[in-house]
């Protein structure tokens, strides 16, 4: 591993997103300016105003950052839009970069490249999280009280509902669009096999699952919340059902971030004390490389094309680490 460079973003790093051309990194701290860093220089190239009391997770849309926050505002390309009262804690663009969405209370707003609101979906409950389908540009999953729903942009009612009565805090799609996973308020995860319309409830976690990620080949799901990361096999007809997961230990405190490399398939995990694990999987076995960094790891983002990891720390430091 080699440290290629680092810089300060001022506060706990809420999210890190590589641009679609893989040249720039969007860095969103909990408060203060939202930054764009260049890969070549490993330093800050642009700054965008923050959102008062707190920023939401930002994203790239048509080559530009879209930001949001507790002030209930969305900003992109010098334009600001405020749909109503209430915080906005994430913005996400869809798979073909033609639309982006924000959730505010019980409404999901879908906007286009002119920052114009195209559609508004009234949700059965506030969206704790949402995620665009990785394969269908007009489909989106929302998660919150009651479970998860699948929507088609432009339609008023969901085309699929996964109601189980409890509450979901996070949602994650597999890259092939087969699996939809929700992290629940209780220590459990729901995994839905979309083509089979088959739900699976995975329990037995030590605590609430705070972060999860699918591998780029959609064959593994990493879930974490405690110091142990559980990696579920998602291949075959049944996926994780009845399968024995891999338990990756070696972290010193609760794991707060997990990410699979699109380039190498390696899993990176980061905990609240700064322990970074880089895990390689080989035929049911795993090897892990452990590195202790100077402060807690809040966000991780692998470069889309290179064996390079961006690490966001809870003290605001952002580091580029090459695995070569």
């Amino acid at each position, binding site marked *: 591993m080699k440290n290629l460079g680092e810089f300060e973003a001022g506060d*706990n790093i809420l999210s890190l997103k590589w641009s679609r051309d893989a040249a720039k990194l969007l860095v969103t701290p909990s408060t203060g300016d939202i930054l764009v860093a260049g890969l070549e220089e490993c330093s800050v190239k642009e700054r965008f105003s923050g959102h008062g*009391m*707190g920023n939401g997770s930002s994203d790239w849309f048509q080559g530009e950052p879209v930001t949001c926050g507790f002030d209930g505002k969305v900003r992109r390309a010098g334009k600001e839009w405020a749909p109503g009262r209430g915080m906005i804690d994430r913005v996400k663009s869809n798979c073909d970069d033609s639309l982006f969405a924000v959730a505010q209370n019980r409404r999901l707003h879908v906007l286009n490249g002119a920052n114009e609101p195209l559609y508004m979906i009234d949700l059965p409950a506030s969206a*704790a999280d949402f995620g665009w389908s990785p394969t269908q540009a007009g489909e989106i999953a929302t998660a919150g009280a009651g479970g998860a729903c699948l929507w088609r942009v432009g339609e008023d009612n969901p085309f699929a509902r996964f109601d189980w009565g409890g*509450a979901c805090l996070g949602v994650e799609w597999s890259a092939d669009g087969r699996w939809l996973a929700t992290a629940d308020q*209780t220590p459990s995860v729901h995994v839905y096999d979309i083509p089979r319309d088959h739900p699976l409830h995975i329990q037995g976690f030590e605590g609430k699952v705070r972060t999860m990620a699918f591998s780029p080949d959609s064959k593994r799901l990493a879930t974490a919340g405690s110091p142990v990361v559980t990696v579920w096999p998602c291949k075959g007809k049944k996926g994780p059902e009845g399968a024995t997961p891999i338990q990756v230990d070696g972290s010193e405190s609760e794991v707060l971030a997990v990410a699979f490399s699109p380039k190498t398939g390696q899993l990176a995990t980061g905990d609240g004390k700064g322990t970074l694990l880089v895990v390689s999987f080989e035929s049911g076995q795993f090897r892990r490389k452990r590195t202790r960094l100077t402060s807690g790891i809040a966000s991780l983002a692998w470069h889309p094309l290179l064996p390079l990891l961006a690490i966001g720390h809870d003290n*605001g430091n952002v580091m580029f680490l090459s695995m070569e």
Partner: protein
Amino acid sequence: MSRIPVTILTGFLGSGKTTLLNRILTEKHGLRIAVIENEFGEVGIDHELVISTDEELFEMNNGCICCTVRGDLIRILGNLMKRRDKFDHILIETTGLADPGPVVQTFFVDDELREKTIVNGVVTLVDAHHIVGQLEQTHEAEEQVAFADVIVLNKCDLVPEENLDALEQRVRGINALATIHRTTRADIDIAKVLEVGGFNLDRAVEVNPHFLDAHGHHHHHHSEIFSVGIEAEGECDGRKLNDWISKLVREQGKDIFRMKGVFAVKNQADRVVFQGVHMLVDAASGGPWAGRPRKNAVVFIGRNLNREALNAGFRMCLA
């Protein structure tokens, strides 16, 4: 790491919550207070420290009121706890019709919030001019009074002094534990709102089950919601006490809004203090008796409580 205190501000529409919030945000008290206001507040407060949110109820266990928490608070506070410049205090305003239960339960149930925050208390604003009608017409007003650690009897200038005493007794009949302050235009020392300590187990030792008796009206309930205080000499059998409270909250937790107590438990030198909300109960050592008589005192606030059954149940726990 010290936990950030949280105060829950509740009260019916028009009771003066916005006036009090504005006072808290503008007065020079030297504290950095984050305010989470509900989206449907009477007036949106435009202030850099205010976050507006929709109350989002999460049922963790299908349909059980005791397992209902506020999802929006989990997300907002989760984010606030991560930021570098922390707050001295967090104040959460509920809607006028909200049940404070899920707000309080959120801080008991969510591990992350439990670790990083501490509920200081529930402060309920009451419109002295309209409270009688509200208590008769809605369950929500009663429940907000029942949950309170502090009741701010506001708009007292609109009610004759002699009526205020009767009003206070009426409120006291519902909630024997709360401290009551009379105000006009929500003009109250901020410390009385913020430094409540209502969920602090150390404060549970201040339980006074005779408060109702002192006002001589505990047998004349105007409402379904009232307080039951029990006091008994002697020592409890710890196992019996545990079994009784477990059974009680399992069977009647839905109707028990708050409970607090201090017990003398056999073979335990220190006081045992406990407090709870619905089915969630917390107990700890309350320190030495320090010369005070070893006796038991407990107060329950709830709906249609059976005073005789509670008394009998508790007496079965005596060693």
